[in-house]
């Protein structure tokens, strides 16, 4: 039976357990009228349902994780030793061949007789394993059901059991975020280490040229295979910072002023309409922004620059930054607006009562008080800016040079990750592996950024509450 249908069955069982538990608890209650039941009937029902399902589900998970390993070792134990010796192959490869055969996939060259036998054995083991699992689960579920059913007594704290289960589920959900982080780190660390076996870390972290080359150009000549290009992180980092800084320079003043106006000055219904409209800016696909930057903003900025005697490239850090800034306006405006409205009226009254004008109150009292929240909003926006890819791909000029001039073309870490990863590079070459090193570096940088921000916010929070 497939895992899916097993799960459906379990759910059905849960419903049955629920009913049984309810009925039973009502009967227990009538039998012991002098004693108050600790929990409500539906709590008992739910408890029986959970008892029926959770242990069985646990078995299912465990089995699914362990069974394949057990089966292969059983098959491996069955393999004729002389055949193994004769093949002189490594056992891993043989097992892969056998499991391919068992899954009805072809293998290279004709399969040996003993291989076919092993495959058949494996298939047989698999089907009996499935049977065994179904049986075991049925037994466990029934046991759980009857165990809990019989335990229903007035003093049994069914609600506590349920709440403990729910809390466990909540905890599991909150570990997903952590598991994701671990997953991300794990999926990058190995490749990063491989990358550093090609390129010394110092060259990566402090290198000032980014020119990874093509891992294979001129392979036919054979002369280039040794050449690895340069993998200096700094130009990419400076590009990332430059673009993000410009974006924040655009978004922070605009977003903050929007937030202030909406929260402090605008009439309620204007605010109610304007806010969601501005929020749309965050939902437009980034590729649209990219083309908007490339086709509209870039040439406009270039012409504008020319008219005031500045050389601005059509695709530059400025173009990408400005457009990205537009995209993250709502992150700052909406979140800050919420936070500004949360600043207690008492503070405003205190300032107004001293004879401050509204703007003085906003600037000197409300904004400082809202600062921790605003920092959070800016941080989220900055995160988005650093992690953004498409706009930069299209609008920043994709030129990894170390420059602080916003009118020049630049490239960023994220763009480079995409390029190197989806690129036409050997997947074992440093050109491709560098993507993982870049990803991990960016991860660490944003982590540091967040830690710093948390510390800052904490500091303010202690002062301000």
């Amino acid at each position, binding site marked *: 039976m497939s895992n899916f249908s097993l799960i459906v069955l379990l759910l059905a069982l849960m419903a049955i357990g629920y009913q049984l538990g309810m009925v039973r608890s009502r009967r227990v209650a009538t039998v012991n009228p002098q004693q108050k039941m600790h929990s409500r009937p539906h709590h008992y029902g739910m408890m029986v349902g959970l008892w029926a399902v959770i242990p069985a589900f646990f078995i299912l998970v465990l089995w699914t994780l362990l069974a394949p390993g057990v089966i292969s070792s059983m098959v491996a134990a069955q393999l004729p030793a002389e055949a193994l010796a004769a093949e002189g192959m490594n056992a891993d490869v043989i097992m892969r061949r056998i499991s*391919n055969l068992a899954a009805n996939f072809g293998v290279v060259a004709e399969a040996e007789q003993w291989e076919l036998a092993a495959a058949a054995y494996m298939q047989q083991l698999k089907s009996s394993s499935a049977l065994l699992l179904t049986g075991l689960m049925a037994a466990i579920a029934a046991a759980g059901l009857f165990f809990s059913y019989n335990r229903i007594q007035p003093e049994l704290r069914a609600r506590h059991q349920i709440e403990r289960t729910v809390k466990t589920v909540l905890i599991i959900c909150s570990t997903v975020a952590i598991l994701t982080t671990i997953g991300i780190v794990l999926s990058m660390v190995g490749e990063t280490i491989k990358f550093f076996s090609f390129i010394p870390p110092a060259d990566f972290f402090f290198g000032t040229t980014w020119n990874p080359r093509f891992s294979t150009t001129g392979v*036919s000549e054979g*002369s280039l295979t040794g050449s690895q290009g340069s993998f200096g992180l700094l130009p990419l980092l400076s590009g990332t910072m430059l673009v993000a800084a410009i974006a924040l320079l655009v978004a922070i003043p605009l977003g903050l002023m929007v937030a202030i106006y909406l929260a402090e000055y605008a009439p309620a219904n204007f605010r109610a309409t304007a806010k969601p409209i501005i929020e749309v800016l965050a939902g437009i696909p980034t590729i649209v922004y990219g083309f908007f930057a490339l086709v509209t903003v870039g040439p406009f900025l270039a012409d504008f620059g020319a008219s005031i005697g500045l050389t601005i490239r059509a695709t530059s850090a400025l173009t990408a930054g400005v457009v990205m800034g537009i995209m993250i306006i709502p992150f700052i405006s909406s979140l800050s607006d919420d936070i500004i409205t949360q600043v207690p009226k008492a503070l405003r009254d205190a300032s107004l009562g001293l004879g401050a004008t509204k703007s003085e109150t906003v600037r000197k009292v409300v904004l400082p008080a809202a600062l921790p929240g605003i920092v959070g909003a800016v941080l989220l926006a900055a995160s988005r800016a650093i992690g953004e890819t498409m706009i930069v791909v299209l609008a920043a000029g994709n030129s990894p040079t170390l420059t602080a001039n916003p009118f020049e073309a630049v490239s960023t870490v994220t763009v480079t990750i995409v390029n190197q990863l989806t690129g036409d590079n050997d997947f*074992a070459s440093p050109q491709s592996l560098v993507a993982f090193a870049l990803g991990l570096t960016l991860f660490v940088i944003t982590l540091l950024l967040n830690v710093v921000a948390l510390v800052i916010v904490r500091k303010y929070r202690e002062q301000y509450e």
Partner: protein
Amino acid sequence: NRDTVQVAGSSTVLPFSSIAAEEFGNNFAQFRTPVVGSGGSSGGLRQFCQGVGTNTIDIANSSRKIRPAEVAACKENGVKEIVEVKIGYDGIVFASRIDAGIFKLKPEHVFLAQAAQVPQNGKMVANPYTNWQQIDKSLPDQTILLAIPGSNHGTREVYEEKVIIDGCKSFAEVQALPKAEQNNFCLAMRTDGSVVEIAGDYTETLARLQAQKNAVGVFGLSFYEANRDRIKVATVNGVEPTVDNIIDGVYPVSRPLFFYVKGEHIGVIPGLKEFAEYFVSDAASGFGSPLEAAGLIPLDDDERATILANIRAKKSL
């Protein structure tokens, strides 16, 4: 078990593969239409070599030949039957905006326009050129702005191999360099913004041409064909990039296109073998076929017959 053929790989091959898949789906009612993914030649091959089983792809498209290292990696992971299928050729052209000057390029012009250092009077000096006319009087009076494919494109490899290296080695100064350093020298690019690497599709190159009148871009032949009203093409060594010229081998910048079939999956994934055969059939990719209409430069009939036979025989690399 999976009943749809899964393809991934080169974005150059993607349109051709998609058309073949669609036609296949329309003509073979008993099979589902194959799903064609992209992600670049290497990306496809990487997935291809992950192993055998339903959650790995059946076919990898590639705008270059599979490399020995990749074959080894494949074998390492149990993918041992790799059937190589060549489907045709692709031309690469230089084009500029329709209202810009007319270019009659030679490889050395392009090299001089993009190199970090150029040979001058026996010495290597930092690239002094900012206008095409400084490179050659026959070229238009236009600021140099080259939009070349990014290093994530298979096209870049052909471009460097057939244009840059070629142009570069025509200089005696370069020939004088030690053999091992020649390529390094040739491929070093100026970083003053005159050369832009395009990581996206040809449309992005086109958009760049639209934004900047002076830009010269690198395109696939079929893309140029479909946009003749907006861009005009440059001759290379005086040869027009046409299908005939490419088939005859007169036009220098062209390359073969491939796909690789996972032999282990043949007979397991329904329609895999049939799709591969259909792809190289005369109806799909011969002369007058939909693929030719889409810009593929077809193989000649003999070559196609051999390849078809290879598929039937599951001839592995």
